[in-house]
């Protein structure tokens, strides 16, 4: 366990200093506990132009927020607010 943790910490530190300065995802920064599926403007920013959901790596979301986003997008797709595919 200890052997596993050490290299990830090193990698994380390097990315923090070199690539990104923000340490929290966009929803954590706003302090949102719930992501509304009716908020199409926010959700459509997390979709490719073919309607696919951006990866966590691309969107920068934390694991919890990515799950919330996933749920919200799938709800919005059911209500025809967002496309399944284009």
């Amino acid at each position, binding site marked *: 366990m200890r052997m596993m943790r050490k290299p990830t910490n090193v990698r994380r530190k390097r990315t923090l200093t070199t690539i990104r300065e923000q340490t929290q995802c966009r929803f954590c920064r706003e302090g949102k*506990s*719930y992501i*509304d*599926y*009716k908020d199409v403007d926010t959700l459509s920013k997390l979709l490719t132009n073919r309607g696919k959901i951006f990866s966590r790596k691309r969107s920068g979301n934390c694991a919890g927020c990515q799950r919330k986003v996933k749920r919200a997008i799938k*709800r919005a*797709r*059911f*209500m*025809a*607010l*967002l*496309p*399944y595919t284009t």
Partner: protein
Amino acid sequence: METAVKRLYEGLFLVDSAIAAADWQLVTDTINRILAKAEAEVVSLHKWDERKLSYDIGKVSRGTYILVYFNCDPLRIHEIERDVQLSETLLRVMILRTDRMSQEDIEKPTPMMVAETQAQAAAEAQARAEADATDDDDDADDDFDDSDDRTDDD
């Protein structure tokens, strides 16, 4: 024995825009009837937005969304969903419990309201601009003699 604890739910109903435009009363009556059948207490019911659907449902390409908040027995939610599926006016419904939602999310103005306020503001701005413009016109019209206006043509 009867312990029907009611919870607050948010329901978004989707109807064909053509039906909503032609007979709004029919749409609200249908929703109210379905909710009343499940003994739900409607807290608020208003039009959320009218927009083009991301994909056609049947042959419908434009839809009107109606946002309803209601208190209902959790065991009777599936009845509402089934009734919507059987209904010919309502296309789809999404019912969610609103416990996780903040009061802010619940009271957020609908896109329809935002558009209306913007339209109102725009109309006011335009009216003001027109008033200014007419004032300018009045100033210009003070000069009725236009014989001297074309002196530069030659």
